[in-house]
């Protein structure tokens, strides 16, 4: 029964690159409607963990379960169809297309219209409306007609988030969504994530370095270190752990310190 299972779970999930174990037997379950922050220094394996969940990398050992069902052997689009969605740390868009077209393509994928050969794409008004709606949410309406490659970095980061919002999956994984954004753009994205979280169906995994952000958004923090899960718990608990204080928060004041 779906209710008994956590929406997403990894069991002993492991990947080895040659001799280097980038993700090391990570077992962790994520409950529906929660936001989990994933913290750890650069190179800890956070992005690799995401890649294993969404399928860009295949696990050396262990499994990924969605609603209790193993999806470890499924391809990336199959996992997307089942409700796993991803925003990337390194901006990963359709550079020669317009901003609106980027989002429209996601809406089109979600509506499973990609194999429609004989209608005119622009005649699917609902897809365009959906794209414009999402662009308004991330404050990119004015840039809708620009070509993505001509967009400033901060706007590309916003579009990266917009694509995931347009996909609207059950599980949303954000990989440092605010990195490289200017200070006044960060709150827009955080508000959006907060809004997604208040929708009880969404489960969010968020890789983020800013401790104050984590404190306000996260229900739970897990800490990865050299690929292994070393701490897991409520934000206040985890932040208070001696190893965390020592290894990640160092001498910086705990209230505004950045992790690594």
């Amino acid at each position, binding site marked *: 029964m779906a209710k008994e299972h956590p929406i997403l779970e990894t069991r002993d999930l492991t990947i080895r690159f040659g001799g280097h174990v980038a993700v090391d037997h990570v077992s962790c379950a994520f409950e529906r409607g929660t936001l989990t922050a994933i913290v750890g220094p650069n190179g800890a394996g956070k992005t690799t963990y995401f890649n294993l969940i969404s399928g860009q990398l295949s696990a050396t050992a262990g499994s990924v379960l969605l609603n209790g069902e193993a999806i470890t052997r499924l*391809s990336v689009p199959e996992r997307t169809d089942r409700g796993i969605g991803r925003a990337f740390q390194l901006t990963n868009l359709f550079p020669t297309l317009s901003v609106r077209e980027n989002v429209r393509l996601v809406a089109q994928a979600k509506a499973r219209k*990609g194999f429609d050969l004989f209608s005119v794409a622009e005649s699917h008004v609902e897809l365009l409306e959906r794209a414009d709606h999402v662009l308004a949410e991330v404050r990119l309406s004015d840039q809708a007609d620009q070509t993505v490659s001509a967009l400033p970095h901060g706007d590309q980061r916003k579009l990266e988030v917009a694509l995931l919002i347009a996909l609207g999956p059950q599980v949303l994984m954000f990989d440092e969504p605010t990195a490289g954004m200017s200070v006044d753009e960060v709150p827009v994205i955080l508000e959006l994530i907060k809004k997604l979280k208040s929708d009880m169906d969404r489960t969010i995994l968020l890789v983020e370095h800013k401790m104050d952000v984590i404190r306000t958004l996260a229900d739970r923090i897990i800490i990865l270190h050299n690929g292994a899960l070393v701490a897991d718990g409520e934000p206040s608990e985890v932040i208070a752990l001696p190893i965390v204080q020592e290894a990640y928060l160092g001498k910086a004041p705990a209230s505004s310190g950045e992790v690594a």
Partner: protein
Amino acid sequence: MLTRLLSGDTPRSGLLTALLLIVLISLAFAPFLFPGTKSLETAARICIFIVLVASYDLLLGYAGIVSFAHTMFFGIGAYGTALALSTTGPSYGALVWGTAAGAGVAALFALAIGLFSLRVKAIFFAMVTLAVASAFAVLVSQMSWLTGGEDGLNYKIPRELTPAFKLIKAKVFDVSINGKILAYYLVFFAAVILFLVMLRIVNSPFGRTLKAVRDNAFRAEAIGYRVVWYRTTATVLSAVMAALAGSLLAIWLRYTGPATTLSMEIMIDILLMVVIGGMGTLYGAVLGATLFILAQTYLHYLMGVAAEATSAVPVVSTLVAPERWLLWLGVLFILSVYFFPTGIVGRLRAGRA
């Protein structure tokens, strides 16, 4: 209505619209505007190559797939029609089933090559198509009992499409309306329809997805598109269109042989036409094919005139001697790529106010 016919993909540049209209009108009235066998041959070739080049652009410009097997598919279509007509006689039935069989075989070949090699790197697909196309060309020249080998096949087509057939006694604008002219209009209208179908495909949700796959296949997968299916379908569609262009050539020439359909030279010509016209825009195929074939046909004639005129000037007259037309075509190509890296259409669209 017109916008609907063009699938919403209007030329979006005044000059481009004008050029396209000139090409369309010239081709539509070619038998009357440019009487004479040679100009009608050229006009028919332009119609056929517009379809062929557009179908290649569907693959290269929209899906970002490099293939060297396009002339193979062109040839499969031509041989399909040719074999049907030469084995069962000049009936419309044979013409239709030969054409359909050619398109079907081309689709199966494309499906097999696509499923086999599009999963891997793009360069692998390019290499596989090169190998398969070369093997196919050798096979066709070896199986001379079927294909006529290097000599190719001569055959009859339905009488109504040959010069011997006179539709009406009177002449129209001094041109007698014979079967050859009917054949020309068959080629012309088929080309227009096929072009409009392709224009619809590239502007459909499917066509838009192809562009996404070309731009960033990794992200296309992450939002749920099965990239291999899209690439394979694009390969199949492009092959079918190329095969239909081949059938038109077979009907028009009443001859099919390796030199007119399968040669690597034609493959390179197609590539040049796509690049000159502008990749990723089907209108580029129209201008690229038209300019290239006009240059190919008339450049050495023009150069002959130029050589005459400059016969007194030693170096110049050698340079413009008609045998050097290929050199000048190369120069024209390099200049056009240098000045219009996005092709003629890209240049015209970017230049609009």
